[in-house]
């Protein structure tokens, strides 16, 4: 029998009532079991971010793995000033943006090529509307820079100043990418 991702995920038990702080402490001492629990807790959010940023399912899975490997390596530097999830998000953004292929892979994909984009598998597929799926596909079809800024700003809620810090692009450039992304998306979804 072939298992769906949802079925596979349901078999993984994440202990209730254990907060990230304790798990991080354990993982910082080298406990991979604790780190696995952190992975089970945060992987879907990290994957969603990678998937939307890079617009490619296979690459997103590689980058999600890369994110957690980098997080493990850099765990000693995590001091708990921000929530672990927030810190991990930054690690994911850096992993995606630092990857050479992230902007190259779909820079030439035009909005009308949306039928070629792989379907999404959402955590709660029954709650997802066809409009949401259209939007997901449309985002995946955006040019790299516009897609990254749109995802970071409109989906993830980062401000232009933060995007500027993460990507190294000027605030004005970030705004220009966002406006372009919104214009393209409105044209596609009309």
């Amino acid at each position, binding site marked *: 029998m072939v298992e769906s991702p949802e079925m596979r995920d349901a078999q993984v038990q994440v202990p209730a009532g254990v907060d990230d702080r304790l798990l991080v402490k354990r993982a910082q001492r080298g406990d991979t079991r604790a780190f696995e*629990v952190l992975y089970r807790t945060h*992987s879907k959010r990290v*994957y969603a971010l990678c998937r939307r940023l890079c617009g490619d399912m296979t690459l997103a899975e590689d980058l999600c793995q890369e994110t957690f490997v980098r997080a493990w390596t850099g765990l000693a530097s995590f001091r708990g000033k921000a929530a672990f999830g927030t810190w991990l998000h930054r690690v994911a953004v850096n992993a995606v943006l630092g990857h050479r292929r992230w902007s190259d892979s779909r820079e030439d994909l035009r909005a009308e090529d949306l039928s070629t984009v792989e379907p999404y598998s959402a*955590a709660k597929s029954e709650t997802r509307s066809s409009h949401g799926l259209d939007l997901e596909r449309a985002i995946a079809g955006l040019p790299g820079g516009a897609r990254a800024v749109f995802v970071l700003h409109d989906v993830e809620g980062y401000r232009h100043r933060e995007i500027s810090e993460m990507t190294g692009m000027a605030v004005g450039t970030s705004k220009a990418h966002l406006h372009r992304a919104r214009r393209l998306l409105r044209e596609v979804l009309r």
Partner: protein
Amino acid sequence: MKQCKDSRRWMNDAVDGDLRPDLTERLEAHLDSCPECRRHMDDLRSLVTAAAGLSSELVPSRDLWPGIEGRLTGVPSSRWPVRSVVLAVAALVVVGFGLSLLRAPTTGPQLAPSADPGIVQAHNRTATLDDVRLEYRQARDELMEVVQARSGEVSPETLQVIENNLALIDRAIDEIEMVLAASPGEGRLDRHLLLAYNRQIELLRWAARMPSRI
């Protein structure tokens, strides 16, 4: 039309809440009189709302953990952090021994009923570990308030001893909670955890009742 051109230029900032108030007023005034720009603005707002409402989670097509685990090199791979538990229990024994040397004072502030250290035995029989955990945390909070209210009445050295012991117990609780998370239902660990909570309550109870200027 120039007004339409200006309005289109301002719309993105307006949606993001970044448009100056005077320009916002001008934009709103224009939208009231221009159906085309109004539709444009509504589309933009719908798009931004839809993007913010996308699921924050997506499921990968496969379990990525095995690939990650294989790359976590250069770290201990033991499943059970036995040494940590041993150290945690040892810390509890040390604190417990220290407490036994202290003579329990007979006078002091009245404690809330839930702060009674006897709750371990009562709960062992009837409640789940989560219930006991919750009740201990409530008792700890109540006792901490009493101890903090009396902090001016005891010597700094005594306060330091109390804080050091509380930190030791906190670490022991953290260690045991972590191992329990990986191995729920491990009876011996449950008992160690209850012992840790009990030690903590005992220490706080002693601190709350001790005479001034010890």
